[in-house]
């Protein structure tokens, strides 16, 4: 271990020469006061940088490389993707499910966060705790709990059948995936929404009312636009996380409703087609970036229309 440690700072190891003790001593001394102030913080981020490079950049580069080099160099993996309708179905389904998760989370979280904004401190704390409790519970345990509750012979269907309804198939399909994902992702919508809403000056809504706006108008034309940044950041957080979900769809979904993360698993682990798995990963990344780019463009346009130059994206 110790030999490897020193190995990483050998003189010809590619470390920035200015950081190497000894050789550049004179130059450093000349500029010592100014440089030391700047170099200290720069050095502090090195561990994080090394970690980011090693854990994120390297694997990403590796999967991009594999998508065109495994098992042999060429674009056969991309051709494979384009040729099969099942591949497009899986990608489309993944984007659709992520979109639905974001919409459902928004619909549930908006009133909840608004209620948090207008309630007193004690109730607000309780509301935050309620949102955060699932955060502290293992994802696996929650997913298994959902299986037991939602299966055809489970509690949810028993209650429904007492009311003369059902039975509904609530798991091993997209419904199950959505129920599980929304529950897991809801805090990621509630918290950004709440933090945006609490910064909205509620006196503005009152001012609108005092100028004759009906409550609904005051709310939609004053409060909603001001809280919009929370909607955008919450939706993005939920959407992007939903794209890569694995455990919840694997447990609550079905192979026939497979999402892309499960499909990657099948390619990498079941079929040993690492190149194809890499293609799926790369395409998911590209699709996500394209959607984000589109959204950023739309946001900028609408902001310019509103005469606001500030940027969230």
């Amino acid at each position, binding site marked *: 271990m110790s030999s490897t440690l020193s190995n990483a700072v050998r003189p010809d190891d590619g470390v920035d020469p200015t950081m190497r003790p000894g050789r550049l001593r004179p130059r450093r001394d000349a500029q010592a006061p100014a440089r030391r102030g700047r170099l200290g913080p720069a050095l502090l981020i090195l561990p994080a940088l090394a970690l980011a490079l090693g854990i994120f950049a390297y694997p990403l580069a590796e999967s991009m490389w594999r998508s065109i080099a495994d098992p042999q160099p060429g674009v056969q993996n991309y051709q494979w993707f384009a040729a099969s309708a099942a591949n497009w179905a899986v990608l489309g389904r993944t984007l659709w499910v992520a979109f639905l998760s974001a919409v459902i989370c928004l619909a549930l979280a908006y009133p909840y966060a608004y209620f948090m904004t207008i309630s007193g401190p004690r109730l607000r704390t309780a509301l935050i705790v309620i949102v955060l409790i699932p955060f502290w519970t293992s994802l696996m345990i929650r997913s298994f709990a959902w299986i037991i509750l939602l299966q*055809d012979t489970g509690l949810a269907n028993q209650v429904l059948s007492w009311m003369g309804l059902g039975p509904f198939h609530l798991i091993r399909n997209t419904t199950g995936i959505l129920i599980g994902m929304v529950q897991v992702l809801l805090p990621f919508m509630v918290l950004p929404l709440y933090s945006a809403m609490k910064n909205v000056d509620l006196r503005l809504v009152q001012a609108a009312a005092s100028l004759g706006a009906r409550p609904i108008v005051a709310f939609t034309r004053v409060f909603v636009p001001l809280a919009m940044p929370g909607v955008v950041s919450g939706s993005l957080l939920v959407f992007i996380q939903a794209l890569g979900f694995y455990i919840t769809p694997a447990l609550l979904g*079905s192979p026939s409703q497979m999402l892309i993360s499960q499909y990657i698993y099948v390619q990498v682990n079941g079929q040993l087609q690492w190149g194809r798995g890499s293609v799926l990963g790369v395409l998911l990344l590209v699709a996500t970036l394209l959607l984000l780019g589109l959204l950023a463009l739309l946001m900028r346009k609408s902001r310019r229309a509103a005469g606001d130059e500030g940027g969230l994206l």
Partner: protein
Amino acid sequence: MYKTTNSRVKPTLGLAAAALSVLLLAGCGGAGAAPAAVDLGSGPAVAGTVKKDALKGVNLTFVSYGGLYQDGQTAAAVTPFGKESGARILADGPTEYSKIKAQVESSNVTWDVVDTGSYWAAGQCGTELQPLDYTIIDKSKVPAGLAGKCSVPAMQYANVFVYNKDKYKDAPTSWKDFFDTKKYPGKRAIDGTENIEGGIIEGALLADGVPKDKLYPLDLKRAFKKLDTIKDSLVYWTTGAQAQQMLESKEVDMAVVWSGRAFGAVKNGAPFEPVWNASVVVMDTLTVPKNAKNPKASMALINYYLGKEQQEKLTEETSYSPVNVEAKPKLDAVGKKFLITDPAVASKTMVCNFDWWGKNYTNVAEQWVAWVAK
């Protein structure tokens, strides 16, 4: 490894270097350790035996699918082998083919004996797996045709068609009934994983009128067309535990499941009956990855595993059927009912064509995944 030291390394830089070296080490840990010279004794190998203390100081990692099955393997063969041979046995799991590939690719193989699917093993012989040495492994008691170049059977089981006997008064008796959703309405569970096995494809073709002796080569197009007709009634299980749970909760009325899981469900009171003449016998295999550190020791373990007593105990612990023709496991009534080597069962079941499956596995699995996910 270099031996340069530099005492003037700044603490922050040292931290960065530590982070880097951890990353580097993670990629190349544990290499080395040349195979110890192993003396397994002279004379022909006898299944179920190993020379006393022949493997003192050797570490072996046995990998299987976990749960009841691996516990049974461990108790029946792996632990006793460690005691007799002196080898230190480690357990890992579940088997993941990508991990074997990653180990072989990085020339750092830490799995010594791996329980895998039989078709996969046949297809990867020479690429991810190494040929077995049948001077170390005695296959004379293995059922004919089940030992391959790179694999021996680990146990036999069937993909068995079971139905809820409380639901259907007029009991289904064939694959035709499995595909007849008018006469037998209800959900049917099948294996939805990428590890497709003999069973449902053969069943679809038999139900569609293909005679039993003309099944292979399997007409996949025709099979998928037949499967399309019941796709709305299908649900998919992805783990054995899930399959068993679907039976026990009576979520499905019919299913094709591993015989061991059907046994587990019936033992726990699920009202399911097997239809043996619509069931296909398959197997798991034991394999040794390419570049395994001590192949002789790995194969000594496999030879021990195939013994009569070991196979009897394995069956008694797991309900999966033995792969030693002399094994006579002691089972209760339910266990005997699901013992596919029992003549009463074996006379009805059909054994899948391992040769065809092994050669075509990659292609079938690919089409299967696309059909399920479409």
